């Protein structure tokens, strides 16, 4: 495994080379001056050009299960979002509570959490946040509490399932944890975290939310049925979404990886989407959907996997794992707690995707200490809870946060970094405390 570590390249030890590449790439990504996909691909190229990895080793390091699952879900979501079903559900939710502002805040947060659990967080907020602005404009109140609650809800909801958030996809793939296992182990705690978070938001903003009866009546004038753009496509999308999510749930029993199911679902929906149209129209629609896939994210993952593989080959990550275990005294409970809290703080401040990509091999190399890979499962839950919930700690903690902030800015109600952090960081720490108690009671005691 470490055969490349014995060579000396350009007079520089490959260990130092690999670690420097990783640190420089992560550092420049954090500075946010360049596109993160470009940086990760440059770093990956340097790993190969500097001789840390051969191309074969680099390609073997790419987790195609993560890539396939992400791409497949992006295609499915790109098609489904054209049906207007997100807007339909959001408006329906606002009308169910008769236009009451606090009721709308709760309902839209729950809708955001549920959609985020099964689809990606960014798409969810991309579709729900503008409808929220429209509704708060109708109510004549400031959108901040609503958008604030939605940011938290999207990250909490994303924690619940294997496909909810990219860290979970990476963890599930690396550790061989199924969709069903995520559902059974992570989903049960998210409603409690959601409930406590919404409770706190009530104390922070709830009393200030007031709308006149005229404004509430205006919300009731919204016609959710007009939001549905394309009924046949809606049926096809719902059919494929249900099939794919059902497929994820039973995949493990059939020895299928989630990526196969997601990619098959994507291909099926691409086929059904333009069924009966001529070839030219089919090609046109297909190319439109392909353009909506976030290739930047996909290539970012490809580069990142190679960079982390390079560092892993030098044995540095194994060494870091030993250091971590020395610090926790090799105690399993202490290690799980450390992973949870460090992941949460780190994910609040830096991109959680490279963080998790680095943590995965680190945790894997703890297997001998704790008696085999099967014993590591609670540590994976700690990493998933920390990395996903940690995204709520600051405005830059997750991509969805920045998307919502972008909408707020354009609507003339900017969300400020420190203002958000003041409100959100403590709530994030509280959610981690709940997660810690859950881990302790269920897996550790």
């Amino acid at each position, binding site marked *: 495994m470490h055969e490349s570590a014995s060579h000396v390249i350009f007079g520089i030890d490959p260990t130092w080379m690999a670690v420097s590449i990783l640190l420089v790439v992560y550092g420049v990504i954090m500075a946010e001056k360049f596109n993160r996909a470009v940086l990760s691909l440059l770093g990956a190229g340097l790993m190969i050009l500097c001789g840390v990895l051969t191309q074969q080793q680099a390609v073997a390091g790419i987790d195609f299960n993560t890539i396939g699952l992400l791409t497949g879900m992006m295609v499915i979501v790109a098609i489904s979002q054209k049906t207007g079903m997100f807007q339909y559900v959001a408006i329906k939710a606002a009308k169910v509570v008769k236009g009451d502002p606090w009721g709308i805040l709760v309902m839209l947060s729950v809708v955001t959490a549920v959609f985020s659990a099964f689809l990606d967080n960014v798409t969810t907020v991309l579709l729900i946040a*503008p409808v929220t602005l429209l509704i708060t*404009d109708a109510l004549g109140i400031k959108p901040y509490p609503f958008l604030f609650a939605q940011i938290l809800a999207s990250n909490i909801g994303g924690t619940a399932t294997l496909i909810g958030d990219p860290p979970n996809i990476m963890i599930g793939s690396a550790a061989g944890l199924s969709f069903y296992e995520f559902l059974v182990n992570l989903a049960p705690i998210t409603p409690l975290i959601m409930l406590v978070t919404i409770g706190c938001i009530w104390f922070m903003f709830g009393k200030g939310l007031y709308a006149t009866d005229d404004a509430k009546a*205006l919300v009731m004038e*919204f*016609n959710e049925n*007009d*939001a549905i753009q394309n009924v046949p496509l809606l049926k096809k999308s719902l059919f494929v979404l249900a099939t794919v999510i059902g497929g994820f749930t039973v995949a493990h029993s059939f020895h299928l990886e989630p990526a196969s199911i997601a990619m098959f679902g994507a291909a099926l929906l691409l086929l059904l989407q333009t069924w009966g149209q001529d070839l030219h129209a089919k090609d046109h629609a297909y190319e439109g959907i392909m353009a909506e896939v976030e290739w930047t994210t996909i290539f970012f993952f490809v580069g990142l996997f190679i960079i982390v593989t390079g560092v892993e080959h030098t044995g540095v990550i194994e060494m870091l794992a030993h250091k971590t275990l020395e610090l926790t005294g090799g105690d399993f409970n202490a290690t799980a707690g450390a992973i949870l809290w460090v992941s949460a703080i780190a994910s609040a401040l830096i991109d959680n995707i490279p963080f998790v990509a680095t943590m995965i091999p680190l945790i894997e190399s703890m297997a001998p200490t704790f008696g085999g890979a099967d014993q590591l499962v609670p540590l994976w839950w700690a990493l998933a809870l920390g990395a996903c919930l940690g995204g709520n700690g600051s405005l830059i903690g997750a991509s969805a946060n920045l998307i919502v902030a972008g*909408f707020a800015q354009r*609507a003339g109600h900017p969300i400020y970094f420190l203002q958000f952090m003041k409100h959100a960081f403590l709530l994030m720490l509280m959610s981690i405390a709940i997660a810690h108690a859950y881990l302790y009671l269920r897996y550790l005691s």
Partner: protein
Amino acid sequence: MKAKLIMTKDLVVCHPDQTVLEVMNILREKSFRVLPVVDENNKILGAVNMLGVLSKLTPEYIVNGDLKSISYAPDMGFLRTHYKEIIDHKVIDIMDKNPTIVGENESLLSVTAALITFDRFEYAFVANKENVLLGIIAASDVVRSLAQFDPEVLFDA
């Protein structure tokens, strides 16, 4: 055929410190779709058009297409509210700062390409090298010049 041969030269213009209300009244009374905004030396600063003003009255998240269709939303009254807020502003605050501008000697093909590719409002201003306004070409002017088929003008000018 060159831009300067098909442009309208007789222009009504406005100045950056005029109010939005004044300019909107001119647009409505004369049924114009656009007014160039020029400085004291007749250099182009921008353009005011009806659609541009309407887009200033509409929330940004609707204008930029974040919501796609909003056929489900009632009239929420903010167009009227925002209109009242905007009419006392100066033209410079709301004008389109990047109108399509073509050179006086550009070909008909080039003008057509500029209209199709860059412009959402079916017109282009014609300016000399110093950006001084010389005229305006609407999409209809291009079509009219095609209808008046005159090979001599077409190929020699």
